[in-house]
């Protein structure tokens, strides 16, 4: 291997830090195995990392022996971010600088039950906390995102029927009872908007529109630098704007909602005859592989969503429209028709009108938002402004 002694050392340091990050926490022996470095080198690097306050070492027990567990530093405390999706549950543990220390994704069945899923949320949070060698007491708060509007007054789903089986569930209370830590609940698109406006594609902007198109469709509004939730938390529920007056009846009870046209099941249905059973991720993958049928479906969805976003953008006057969720992963196939729909409105196409960009945080926007919500809602400690800037600069 070419390179000087110091650059080799630098590379080894990065290797150790990466391994710790990927696994949450590793003992020094495991680190040697994971990186292929000698025990002595690992030990020296760990000492370096601890001195630089990048890593922490604490005693633990592995296979009945005492061992030194190495984790990334999280002295001030930890927060958990949870995003409950229609088909996936994402849980992450982060430090106060929004740095994710451990993460786990659990595939969920369609129409999953609130009791089972919240139970699994609690167990996964505990598991992740253990994985980084911490205890629940170090958890400052838990941010939870749901694919439905959340009424800030009640903390419950604010629109009956859209998330089957979750109406009248006191989500925060259920989790607080299990974990004895403060829990904050919000709509997932609001969390995406929060993350993109503080850490992502809308960092320097005051007014922003975030749109998430995955299994469901939602939008988060950032007005004057703050997420706007509306009086009962239903602001930005574009999934339930009517786009087809003769369309199907939606889970919310109205006819022809955007979600009945571009929601996951609606997108997959016309593909079934020639493709068999696909998931939304299959459609994204096939679209990236230039499959004509899937491109057609995704592009049409972009145009339809664009029409609704154009109306909302005309009302809000955002500086930027940030698009996240699974369909945004297809890039311009989805974004170009969406942008085109906005350009057709004179008000939006004027110079200085909003541009349409993909979410900088990608599929992790909501999860980062849940972490940001927990951090924002917790005032147990003085958060120095420098930490904020550091997080924002990433």
């Amino acid at each position, binding site marked *: 291997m070419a390179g000087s002694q110091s650059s080799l050392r630098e590379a080894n340091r990065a290797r150790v830090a990466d*391994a710790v990050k*990927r*696994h949450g926490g*590793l003992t020094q022996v*495991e*680190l*040697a*195995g*994971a990186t292929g470095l000698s025990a002595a080198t690992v030990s020296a690097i760990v000492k370096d990392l601890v001195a630089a306050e990048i890593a922490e070492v604490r005693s633990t027990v*592995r*296979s009945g022996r005492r061992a030194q567990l190495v984790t990334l530093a999280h002295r001030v405390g930890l927060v958990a971010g949870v995003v409950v999706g229609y*088909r996936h*549950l994402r849980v992450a543990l982060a430090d106060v600088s929004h740095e994710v220390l451990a993460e*786990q*994704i*659990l*595939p*969920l*069945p*369609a*129409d*999953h039950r609130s009791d*089972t899923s919240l139970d*699994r949320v609690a*167990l*996964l949070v505990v*598991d*992740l906390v253990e*994985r980084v060698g911490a205890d629940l007491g170090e958890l400052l708060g838990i941010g939870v995102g749901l694919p439905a509007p959340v009424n800030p007054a009640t903390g419950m789903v604010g629109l009956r029927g859209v998330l089957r089986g979750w109406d009248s569930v006191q989500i925060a209370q259920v989790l607080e009872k299990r974990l004895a830590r403060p829990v904050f609940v919000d709509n997932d698109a609001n969390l995406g908007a929060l993350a993109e406006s503080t850490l992502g594609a809308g960092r320097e902007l005051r007014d922003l529109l975030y749109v998430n198109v995955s299994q469901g469709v939602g939008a988060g509004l950032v007005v004057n630098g703050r997420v706007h939730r509306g009086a009962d938390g239903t602001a930005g529920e574009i999934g339930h704007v009517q786009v087809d007056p003769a369309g199907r009846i939606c889970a919310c009870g109205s006819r022809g909602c955007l979600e009945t046209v571009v929601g996951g*099941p609606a997108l997959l249905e016309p593909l079934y005859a*020639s*493709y*068999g*059973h*696909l*998931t939304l*991720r*299959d459609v994204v*993958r*096939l679209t990236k*592989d230039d*499959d004509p049928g899937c491109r057609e479906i995704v592009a049409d969805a972009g145009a339809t969503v664009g029409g609704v976003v154009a109306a909302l953008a005309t009302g809000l006057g955002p500086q930027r429209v940030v698009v996240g969720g699974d369909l945004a992963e297809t890039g311009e196939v989805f974004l170009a028709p969406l942008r085109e729909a906005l350009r057709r409105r004179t008000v939006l196409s004027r110079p200085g009108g909003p541009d349409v960009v993909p979410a900088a945080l990608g599929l992790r926007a909501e999860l980062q938002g849940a972490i940001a919500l927990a951090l924002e809602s917790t005032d147990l400690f003085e958060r120095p402004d420098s930490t904020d800037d550091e997080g924002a600069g990433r």
Partner: protein
Amino acid sequence: MTPPTDGTRRRSPLLALREVSKNFGAVEALVGIDLEVYSHEVVALVGDNGAGKSTLAKVVAGVLTPDAGQVEIEGRPVTIHSPSAANALGVASVFQDLAVCENLDVTANVFLGQEIRGRAGMLRDGQMEVDTRRLLEHLTVRIPSVRTPLRSLSAGQRQAVAIARTLIGEPRIVVLDEPTAALSVAQTAEVLTHIERLREMGLGVILISHNLNDVRAVSDRIEVMRHGRNNGSFPASASHESILAAITGAA
């Protein structure tokens, strides 16, 4: 590992069982079972204890030979005499007991019985370690070191090693018998994620499980078995209740 590039369009099934029957004396374990598995597809087999799920898995894996009926692989009728014949036909299986060696490390387990040898018949440890590491990364398995003995891994990590082992022969079909039994939620999450990866790699997966939650989370299709017979085929979006009804015979 080279994932097949042929997309998900409907073609002939990777694996088809036609009217397969198997008796153990007076016990009718399988009665005229039909099953099709396509590439890029996870097919779940659910049913009560003794419904014939594991017998069916053993027929596909070559452990048992059916008394009647036809097994087809990629449209060709085949007879699977033994597990190694199944391997040669591109069928790999992980059974409930995993059959891993506690005292051997991850690499040795992955390559057990299919070790890479050099010209003089010497084991090529380095190559096997590199391959193992790549395989685990491909499955997004988080095991710190491929030199860890299996006894110091968690149940979920052992399951991951067992799944990784099936991928050595570049199979087209993977049979998983109760892969999430007795796992914690976090370990279940990992195994279900591996199953999603297998599907993305273009494999056909037969998933046998009691846990309807896990089954409905990752399957494309759910085949219910009852008393050795087909008792309904459901899309993954079918409700918990309708599948339960078919399992218990209420419908």
